[in-house]
């Protein structure tokens, strides 16, 4: 089994006619994702990789019965796109764009909560369920493999590094979820961990965090009653305070968001915390056997 995303999802792509939208639609289809169409205002009637393009989400849903949407539109239009999906009843919205205003993200997340919908991102690489041959995101297809490990990460390339080392180390994944690198995102470590807890096929979880905010500290509280082995790796050990390390959310501000605080909390909660990304596989092996 996988969490949040399965082969039974019906996926549309908002912004399907743009460069990114076209490229990643092709990759998603190649992976096996049930993409059923796309939305691009003014482009109704055209097609992308054989998929129908609609002017509105409403029209797309009428024809395709879509229940999930991946958003590729530029950041200034992302709030509009997200609300269009949510208001039309889409239950899973993956927001790829970076640089969406935080206030827009707050509005999107608040509305999603009200509607019982799931928002992943913004500023995320997406979500992939290897055993289901299904992904909504921009991650490379070849590095994942079906298996018993759940992965939840804040950052893209770093999670690729770790997922690939898991695959090479013989640990396939149930689902890999990218929370996103922004200060306000739809998911928390806790909300994703909860899905992994409920999933019988997920035997252990790898958390990939970083400096900034206190999502890891909050997660640590939850881990005390999690019941499955957890290995955590956090990036930003050498980051100076007050500087944004690429991600809008990766900043130590006014003494908050330090790596020490996060590692301490996770250690106390019984997670196996490693210092470097290449130590994850060994720690996982130990955590599962122990």
């Amino acid at each position, binding site marked *: 089994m996988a969490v949040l995303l399965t082969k039974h999802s019906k996926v549309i792509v908002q912004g399907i006619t743009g460069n990114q939208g076209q490229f990643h639609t092709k990759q998603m289809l190649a992976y096996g994702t049930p993409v059923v169409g796309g939305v691009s205002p003014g482009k109704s009637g055209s097609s992308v990789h054989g998929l129908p393009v609609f002017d509105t989400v409403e029209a797309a849903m009428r024809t395709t019965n879509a229940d999930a949407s991946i958003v590729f539109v530029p950041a200034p239009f992302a709030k509009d796109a997200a609300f269009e999906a949510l208001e039309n009843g889409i239950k899973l919205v993956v927001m790829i764009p970076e640089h*969406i205003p935080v*206030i827009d993200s707050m509005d999107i997340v608040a*509305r999603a909560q009200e509607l019982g919908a799931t928002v992943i991102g913004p500023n995320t690489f997406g979500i992939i369920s290897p055993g289901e041959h299904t992904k909504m995101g*921009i991650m490379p297809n070849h590095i994942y493999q079906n298996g018993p490990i759940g992965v939840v990460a*804040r950052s893209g*390339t770093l999670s690729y590094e770790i997922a690939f080392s898991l695959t090479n180390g013989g640990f396939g994944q149930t689902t890999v979820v990218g929370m996103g690198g922004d*200060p306000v995102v739809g998911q928390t470590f806790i909300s994703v961990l909860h899905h992994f807890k409920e999933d019988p096929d997920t035997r252990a979880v790898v958390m990939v965090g970083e400096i900034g905010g206190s999502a890891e500290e909050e997660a640590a509280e939850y881990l005390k009653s999690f019941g499955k082995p957890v290995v955590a790796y956090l990036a930003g*050990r050498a980051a100076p305070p007050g500087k944004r390390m*690429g991600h809008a959310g990766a900043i130590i501000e*006014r003494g908050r968001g330090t790596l020490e605080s996060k590692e301490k909390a996770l250690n106390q909660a019984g997670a196996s915390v490693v210092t470097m990304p290449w130590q994850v596989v060994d720690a996982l092996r130990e955590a599962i056997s122990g």
Partner: protein
Amino acid sequence: MKQYEYLAKGVLREHGIPIPPGRLVNNPGEAAEAVRDIGPAALKAQVLVGGRGKAGGIRFATNPDEARGVAAAMIGMDLKGYTVERLYAEGKLEIEREFYISVTTDRNKKIPLVMASLAGGVEIEDVDDSKIVRQWVDPRVGVLPYFGRELAQRLGLEGTLAKELADLVVKLYAIFREKDAELVEINPLAVVGGHLIAADARLNIDDSALFRHKTVEIIDEGSDLEKKVHKIGLAYVELDGDIAIMANGAGMAMATVDAIQYFGGRPANFLDAGGGASVEPTAQALDVLVSMKPKVIFINIFGGITRCDDVARAILQVKNTTGIPVPLVVRLVGTNEKEGVALLEQAGISAYSDMAPAAQRAVELRGGGRS
């Protein structure tokens, strides 16, 4: 993006929050003129550093002549690494009490947070938690006057001050929304003659929202090199070591910096060449690293969307034009890895496929790292 105090004050005034009389001055003559008009004033250095007062960035002048002298001494002075170029002359206040109020984003609750305290005038991190009142805002509702009345009540304010605070928090939240603020803070929120007045203000605007605030002046606080790289559109932070680093993706770049430190080296920078970088921006990024004159350059690429052959081409482009005069360590793995590695090998550069030995090698080449 942080805003100068005078800009933040201007925004408060536009929204009807009382501020002391004040104006921006560029030279001693203007300072003298300002004090002639305003009366005894504080001359405040317009720099974006905290603890400005303690560092000598706020001085007082009671008459125009004194203002001229003080301004002459302040303009051009170094304040925690920043050169003071402009001052804000502001009428001196007879402060009775100092409060604190701010609106910011609670990252965990994903909603705005109003924090207030009657123990203002110091950094809020130094205020005892029991003296801080927190009220969260439902962004779908916003802040209505009742929210402010409840806040005033929790703080223990009564009468005029309670009324003024309730009114002020509505306006402060309006600024937070309209300006796409990450933080809008009044500290101290002073009581003068029994009324509230904003004695100092901070306003940080969300960088991602600048597209809808076209009139906002772009302020890049970085070093000259940081500013240059930011203009290319790359995330870059200067560090104080001598091993220059490039990686793709923010998380990878952070992990790479950490790895260099782990093996005993000192990273010179954080540079995210982008999660899907193509040849040209990668070459530009590498040019920047070369210009830093580091002891070693370490490139760490996990090709997902980024193609390894593109990275290799960028490296060769820089090698064949500007030249790479220092030892170079490349770790290259992922999409089109074979092509990329082959391209580099033709040019006599061998690539690592694992991060750990590559980072270790970079530190060894610098010399003096732990083995």
